[in-house]
C-alpha cells in the first residue's frame, strides 16, 4: 500500500504548504479567469431576475429544466466528501489520506453552489424569505413542512453545517503548523483560527474523538440529503415517471458515483497544479478506481431497476415515455451518451490496473462519469415533465437558452475558483494525516519477501 519514499515531517510541511507561501503567476491568472466567468454568470442571473423566467427555455409543461438539473448535480458532487472522509476513516482505509480534505472542501463549496440554483430559478427570487425562514410577521403562516421543497433546505443546510464543522476541526492541527511558520499579521490570524492548538496528547485525543463522532453523525445526514432531494421528484404523484420508490437510493448512489469521480478529478488536478507527486501517488488512484467500479456497478443496477419499472405496468403512456427516451432523436442520442459515459466507458477503463494507476487516464474517465451523471439528472427531469400524463395534447419539449447555459458554466467556475482560493490559505492535503500514515508504515518479513504492512491500534 505504501509506495514512494518515506517522507520526514519537514519535507511534508514544506511540500504541502508550498502554495500558501509562494505566488505563482499561473495561479492568479487562473483565478482571474474563473472570476470573470463567475461575474458573467452573475450578470446573466441578474438579467434573468430582472426580465422574468421567459429568458430561459422553460415552458409549460417543462417547468423545471437546466437549473434543477444543476442543483441535483451539485448536491450529488457534495456526497464525495462524506463518502471518502467518514466511511474510509471509520473503516481505517490507508489510502484515504491525501483525499479527505479535498473531498470535504469540495462538499462545502458544491453545497453552497447547489443552493444558489433553487434560489435564482424561482419566479420571484426576491421573495425567497417566505420559503427558508419562518416568516410570521403579519399572517401567522409558516413554511409548509409538508412540502418536499421545505425539507430540502433543512437537509442541505444541516449537511452544510456539519461539513463545515468537519473541515474546521480537521484543519486545526494544520493551522497551527502554518501559524508556526509565518510571521506578522498572518501569524496573528492563524493563531486565532487554530484556537490555541498546542499539539499535546489531550488535544489530539479530543480531535480524534471529535472526528470519529462527526464521521458517524454525518453519515445519516449524507444519506438523507440526497434522498430528500429525490423526494422533490418521487413525491410528485402526477409525473408518472418520477413516482418511483427507488428514487432515494438511486439518487444517493448516483451522487456517490459522481462525487467520488469529482474527487478523483480534483486530486489529479492538485497533483499536476501543485506538484504533489509524492503525496498523491498512483496507488491512491488505483484504490479509488476499484471503489468506483463497485459504486458504478451498484448505480447501474439501480438504474436498470428504475428503467424496468417504468415499463413494468405495461401502461401505454409510460411505454410511450421510454420509447421517446430511447427512440426519438435527439433524446435517444443523449440517452446513449449518458449510459455510455456514466458506466460503460469508465468501467471498462477501470478494469485495467494500468489505467487505474495513471492519473491522466483516471481524469478522463471521471470527467466522462460526471458528464454522464449531469445528463442522467437531465434525462430524469425533462422527459418526465415533457410527457407527464395521458393528456398528450399538453405534451411538450425543452431546449436550454444561452442564459441558462452561461449560469451553469458559471457554477462550475465558481466551485473551481473557491477551491483554488481555499488552497491558497489552507492546505488541501491534511498534513497530520500524511504524517500519521508515515508513522504507521511498517514492513514484515515472510520468507524471503518483505511485505509492506500497516500498524493497527486495536
Amino acid at each position, binding site marked *: 500500500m505504501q509506495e514512494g519514499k518515506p517522507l520526514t515531517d519537514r519535507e511534508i510541511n514544506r511540500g504541502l504548504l508550498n502554495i500558501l507561501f509562494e505566488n505563482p503567476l499561473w495561479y492568479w491568472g487562473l483565478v482571474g479567469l474563473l472570476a470573470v466567468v463567475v461575474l458573467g454568470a452573475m450578470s446573466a442571473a441578474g438579467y434573468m431576475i430582472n426580465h422574468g423566467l421567459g429568458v430561459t427555455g422553460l415552458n409549460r409543461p417543462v417547468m423545471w429544466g437546466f437549473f434543477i438539473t444543476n442543483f441535483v448535480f451539485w448536491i450529488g458532487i457534495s456526497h464525495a466528501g462524506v463518502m471518502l472522509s467518514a466511511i474510509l476513516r471509520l473503516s481505517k482505509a490507508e489510502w484515504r489520506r491525501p483525499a479527505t480534505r479535498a473531498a470535504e472542501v469540495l462538499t462545502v463549496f458544491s453545497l453552497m453552489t447547489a443552493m444558489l440554483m433553487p434560489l435564482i430559478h424561482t419566479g420571484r427570487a426576491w421573495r425567497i424569505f417566505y420559503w427558508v425562514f419562518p416568516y410570521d410577521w403579519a399572517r401567522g403562516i409558516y413554511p409548509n413542512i409538508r412540502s418536499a421543497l421545505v425539507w430540502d433546505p433543512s437537509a442541505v443546510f444541516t449537511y452544510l453545517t456539519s461539513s463545515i464543522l468537519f473541515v474546521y476541526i480537521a484543519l486545526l492541527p494544520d493551522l497551527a503548523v502554518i501559524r508556526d511558520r509565518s510571521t506578522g499579521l498572518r501569524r496573528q490570524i492563524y493563531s486565532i483560527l487554530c484556537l490555541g492548538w498546542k499539539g499535546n496528547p489531550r488535544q489530539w485525543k479530543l480531535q480524534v474523538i471529535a472526528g470519529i463522532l462527526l464521521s458517524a453523525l454525518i453519515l445519516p445526514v449524507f444519506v438523507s440529503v440526497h434522498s430528500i432531494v429525490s423526494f422533490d421528484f418521487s413525491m410528485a404523484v402526477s409525473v408518472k415517471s418520477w413516482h418511483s420508490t427507488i428514487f432515494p*437510493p438511486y439518487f444517493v448512489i448516483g451522487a456517490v458515483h459522481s462525487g467520488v469521480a469529482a474527487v478523483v478529478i480534483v486530486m489529479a488536478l492538485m497533483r499536476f497544479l501543485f506538484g504533489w507527486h509524492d503525496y498523491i501517488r498512483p496507488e491512491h488512484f488505483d484504490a479509488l478506481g476499484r471503489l468506483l467500479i463497485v459504486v458504478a456497478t451498484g448505480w447501474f443496477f439501480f438504474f436498470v431497476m428504475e428503467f424496468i419499472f417504468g415499463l413494468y405496468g405495461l401502461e401505454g403512456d409510460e411505454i410511450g415515455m421510454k420509447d421517446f427516451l430511447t427512440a426519438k432523436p435527439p433524446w435517444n442520442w443523449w440517452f446513449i451518451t449518458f449510459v455510455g459515459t456514466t458506466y460503460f466507458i469508465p468501467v471498462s477503463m477501470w478494469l485495467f490496473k494500468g489505467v487505474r494507476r495513471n492519473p491522466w487516464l483516471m481524469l478522463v474517465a471521471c470527467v466522462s462519469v460526471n458528464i454522464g451523471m449531469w445528463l442522467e439528472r437531465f434525462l430524469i427531469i425533462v422527459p418526465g415533465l415533457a410527457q407527464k400524463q395521458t393528456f398528450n395534447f399538453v405534451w411538450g419539449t425543452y431546449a436550454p437558452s444561452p442564459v441558462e447555459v452561461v449560469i451553469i458554466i458559471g457554477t462550475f467556475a465558481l466551485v473551481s475558483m473557491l477551491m483554488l482560493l481555499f488552497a491558497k490559505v489552507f492546505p488541501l492535503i491534511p498534513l497530520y494525516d500524511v504524517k500519521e500514515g508515515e508513522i504507521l508504515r511498517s514492513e514484515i518479513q515472510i520468507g524471503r519477501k518483505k511485505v509492506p504492512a500497516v500498524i493497527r491500534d486495536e
Partner: protein
Amino acid sequence: MHRANGHTTVGEEVQLTPQGVTEHLSYKVFNIDKRFVLALVGLGVLVILGIIGFIVRAVDDGFSDAARPQWGYYAAMFGFLLVTAGSAPVAAIAFRWTKNHWRRPLSRASELFALVGILNVLWFIPMIFLLPGIDLNGDGVLAVGEDRRTIWFEGPIGAPLWWDTSAVIGLALCGLAILWVSARPDMVALAARGTGWRARFLSWLSMGWRGTEQEWRLQQASLAVLGAFYFMLLVFVHTLISLDFALSLVPGWKDSIFAPHHALTGLQAASGTILVTIFLMRTCGGFRQYIGLDPFWSFSKVLLGLTLLWGYFWFSEFMTFWYGRDPTEQTVVKLVMFESYRVAFLLNFFFSFLIPFVMLIWNVVRKSVIGPAIAGASVVIGAFFMMVRLYVPAFNIPQADLGAHTVADFEAEAGQIAVQLLPVKPDVWDGFIVAGGVGAIALIFLLGTKLLPVMSMWETKEGLLYILFRPFIKGRYMVLGKPE
C-alpha cells in the same frame, strides 16, 4: 492469537502453528462425538416433520392455481431460504474482495452454506407449478386488464419460469463451485490425514491438487471471478423471485425498490446467519482460539450499516406510497404493512430494524461476542416475518383478480380491504414446513462440516503469516501485512 514454537497436539488443545492448525481441523472433521449425533437426530426429526407437512399439503391441495393460497407459507419459507442460506456465501466473497483480515475465521462457514443451495433448488420445484401464467386469458396478447403485471413481456423465452429456474439452479451451482475451489487445498490435507470412505472421497474430489504456485494463483483468480459472478447472480435471483412470486401477484403494486429491498434483506439476514454461526462455532464448536473478538467487532459494524440501509429502503417505499395518496398504493400499504398483515409487519420491523439498531449503536454491544450474535439472530427472525408479510398476501390474491388493474378493482368498498385480503393464519402443516426448512438448513450445514473443515485451513495459515504482534512505542499492537 499468539505465536508459539511448541509441539502440536491432537485433540482440543491446539497450538496455533500451521502444523497445529492442520492437525486440529482434520481432527474436527473426522471426529464424530455424541453431541453431534444428538444434534443430527434432533434436526432430523424437524426435517421429517417438514416432509410430512409437505406431503400432507401436496396430497390435500395439489399444485394448481386454485391451490395457490394454501402454499403461501411454503413460498415464504423459500424466500427465507434464499435470504439466509442462499445469501450467506456473500460474506466470504465480499470481505475477501475488500481484503479484511477478520474474514478468515468465517469464510469457510459462509461458503458451506452453498451446500444448502441444493435444498433451494428442490424447494423451488413445486413453486414452478404454482406460478400463474402471464397471459391469463390465453389469447396470446398481453394487454392491461387481462394479464398479470410482470417484468417479462412475452413468453416463452421471456417467461418467468425459464429465467427463475435457471437463476436458482445457476446460483446453487456457482455456490458449489466456489466451495469446491476454496476447499481444494484443504481436501488434500484432510485426505492425507484420514481413513475410510471420506478420505477416499475427498482425495477424488480434490482432483489432483498439488499446491504449486501456479495453482494457488489460479485459485485466487477463480475465487475472485466466481465470487463476483455469485454476487451478481444472487442479486439477479433476489430480483426475479421477489418480483415474480410476490410483487406481480398483487394487482396494481408497482414498487421499484421492492427487488433491491429484498436483496438487501438477503445481505442483512446472511450477515445475521453468519454471526449466529460463528457464535455457535466459538461457544459450542470448540473454535474459540480461531475466532477472536475481531470478527464480531467488525462484522457488527457491517450489520449495523445493513440494518440502517434496511430501514432506509423501507422508509423510501413507505414515504413514496403514503405521501402521494394514490388509492392503489394506499391499499397496498394497508395490505402489507398497516392493516391486513399488521402483526407480521410489526414483528418484521422490530426484529429486522428496531432491535438490531438499538443494540448495535452501542460500542459495548458491538465489542462483545454475545451482542452481535443476538442482533444477528434478531435479524434472521425479522427476515422470516418479512417473507411472511410479502409472500403470503401475494399468494392469497384470488386468481380471477390477478389481471385487475388496481387492487381497488376488487375491493368491497374503496379504501377498505376486502374480505379476501384478511390475514391468512398458518395451520399446523405450515408450522411443520417452517420447522422442516429451518431444520434442513442446519442439518445440511452440520453434515457439511463433517466433510469439509468449517474453518478454512489455508486461510487461517495464511493469516498466521500476515498478522503479527509487535511492540510499538509503549504498547503492543497488531501489524497487518498488506502484500497487495
